[in-house]
């Protein structure tokens, strides 16, 4: 099997660099720095030390006994929700921040949807003493005011984006525009496995610890590989992080996309399921777009999955059939979130609940004893507002039912 991506960042027809020439020099510098870092034991040691002592990694692998009993299959949860800042995203930002330091840059910019990647970036910037600016859709700054406050507390500047649909994709546009103008001293600390080469590869390399750890942990605990690995997919960083270690194994990989109100309603963020190839934010991949190629707004109860594109490596895994991608609706995800809370005492992120819901949906068709590894990519504290709105909780006199 040839090494993917190729030197110009392509997985088959996907990936590449669809950006202004003005950014190419910076992308080449980044690619060279990353390639060198990956081969440098010093970088690896520093990354490992930081991950352990600061990031609280490796994250535990947890056998969800009561949930497994109900589902009729063995469900193992990779507890990324226990990481510093509450999600897998700390892996990506620590890796990229270390790289920023090595490139001699002193400022980072980032895009954020719900604010999780923004908070993680602001955290790493505080740790390393970088200046930090986060672009966030104006709509999202209102919906996620607590995360805006977190970023500000950490010393970052949050810039509300008022163009287009005022959400994640527009924040990404604005970050790219800002990067063109400040590329000399600024690193664009992208939040997922999307964007122009080398970002998809680089973010995957920093997140792949999820799967590397889980593979060793489950072999240690059960003596065999899992039958299935499941993860949620927005841009797809936690899923690539979980999948990469298993790509060469006889393990089924499932990515669960945000089905929103239901795929058939057209109000969703199920980019791969929709199956239209296009170019967005610097890469050729699957894109939610209209007949003319104008980007369509995505919809999901989960801000972290609410994005009309997807990382190009996922597009490749889907096109080649190596991984299966299916939509999970808002309702299925919220039901899974509640079930996990009540069977295991774990409140996960709405994003991660999509992975769990997908796994629970597969369960009845699986043989008993099947091992399903679910990446619990983040914790649910940030989603309590959504939970309150959705279930109507928050009133102590109520009975706690919908």
């Amino acid at each position, binding site marked *: 099997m040839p090494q993917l991506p190729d030197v110009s960042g392509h997985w088959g027809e996907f990936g590449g*660099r*669809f950006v*202004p*020439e003005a950014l190419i020099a910076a992308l080449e510098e980044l690619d060279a720095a990353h390639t060198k870092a990956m081969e440098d034991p010093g970088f690896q040691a520093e990354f490992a030390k930081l991950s352990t002592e600061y990031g609280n990694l490796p994250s535990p692998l947890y056998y969800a006994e009561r949930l497994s009993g109900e589902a009729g299959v063995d469900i193992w949860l990779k507890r990324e929700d226990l990481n510093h800042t509450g999600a897998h995203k700390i892996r990506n930002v620590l890796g990229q921040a270390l790289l920023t330091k090595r490139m001699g840059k002193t400022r980072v910019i980032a895009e954020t949807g719900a604010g999780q990647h923004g908070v993680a970036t602001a955290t790493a910037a505080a740790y390393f003493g970088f200046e930090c600016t986060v672009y966030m859709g104006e709509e999202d700054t209102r919906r996620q005011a607590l995360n805006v406050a977190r970023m500000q507390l950490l010393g970052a500047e949050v810039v509300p984006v008022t163009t287009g649909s005022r959400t994640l994709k527009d924040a990404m*546009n604005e970050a790219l525009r800002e990067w063109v*103008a400040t590329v000399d001293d600024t690193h664009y600390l992208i939040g997922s496995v999307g964007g122009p080469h080398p970002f998809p590869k680089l973010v995957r390399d920093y997140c792949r610890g999820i799967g590397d750890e889980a593979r060793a942990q489950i072999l240690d605990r059960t003596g065999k590989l899992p039958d299935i690995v499941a993860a949620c997919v927005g841009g797809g960083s936690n899923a690539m992080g979980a999948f990469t270690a298993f790509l060469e194994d006889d393990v089924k990989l499932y990515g669960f996309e945000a089905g929103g109100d239901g795929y058939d309603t057209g109000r969703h963020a199920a980019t791969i399921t929709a199956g239209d190839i296009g*170019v967005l*934010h610097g890469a050729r991949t699957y894109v939610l777009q209209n007949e003319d*190629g104008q*980007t369509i707004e995505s919809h999901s109860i989960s801000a972290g999955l609410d994005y009309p594109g997807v990382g190009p490596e996922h597009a490749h895994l889907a096109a080649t059939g190596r991984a299966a991608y299916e939509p999970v609706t808002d309702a299925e995800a919220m039901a899974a979130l509640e079930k996990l809370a009540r069977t295991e005492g774990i409140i996960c992120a709405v994003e991660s609940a999509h992975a769990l819901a997908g796994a629970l949906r597969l369960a009845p068709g699986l043989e008993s004893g099947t091992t399903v590894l679910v990446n619990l990519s983040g914790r649910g504290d940030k989603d309590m507002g959504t939970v309150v709105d959705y279930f109507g909780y928050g009133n102590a006199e109520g009975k706690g039912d919908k």
Partner: protein
Amino acid sequence: MRSAEAFAKCKAEGRAALVGYLPAGYPTLADSIKAIDTMIENGADLIEVGLPYSDPVMDGPAIQKAADLALREGFRTKQVFEVVKAVSGRVPILVMTYWNLIERYGVDAFARDFKAAGGAGLITPDLIPDEADEWIAASDEHGLDRVFLVAPSSTEERIIATVAQCRGFVYAQSVMGVTGARSATSAAAPGLVERTRAHTDLPIGVGLGVRSGDQAAEIAAYGDAVIVGSAIVNCYLDAPDIPTGHQRLAELTADLAAGVRR
């Protein structure tokens, strides 16, 4: 009409060319045609017609806003051919577009229909030659100009590779930043033009930031074409009504045209 013809005429007159940009469908479909006519009548030597796109990462606020308005009014890609057909014949008409719109239409199909409408070529701000095999083949097949960008950050190696694939002219992005009228033009531009000229005989157009005849004259001293976009869009964005916008555009174009003749 191809770009080379316009550049030859300007060269014979011993001056730089004036290139005016406007998104198709802005301020309305009919008025975008009228605006382009206005630019041609007042001295524009080439026209860039923009294709409005939902995610214009290279554009500043003015062009973003114009594109957004055109899309909200229901602009469709195929309508660009109406615009091109209506204005072609007098000066070369190029389309400047983000790449997804062309891929979606079909690269060869777009080249064919655009040529049939009288178009000269494409300027592709987010397509670098490295990713352009299909477009290079289609533009050869249909005889269209192919304008790629060079930037202050471009290495020597990339300038060489980029100009080798250009036809018509080379677009020098003069500032590291998005489109937008600026009071001062770029200090990096003369150096970039000089570095580019070392590797090509093609004319070099300089874009991003020009808003006055004085700035146009400054750029005309070293560039072969002065490209103006946001300042043109601003004629309409800032105007109380469209007729006033047309009038302001006529005055601006005349000022710019005088600038390239100084």
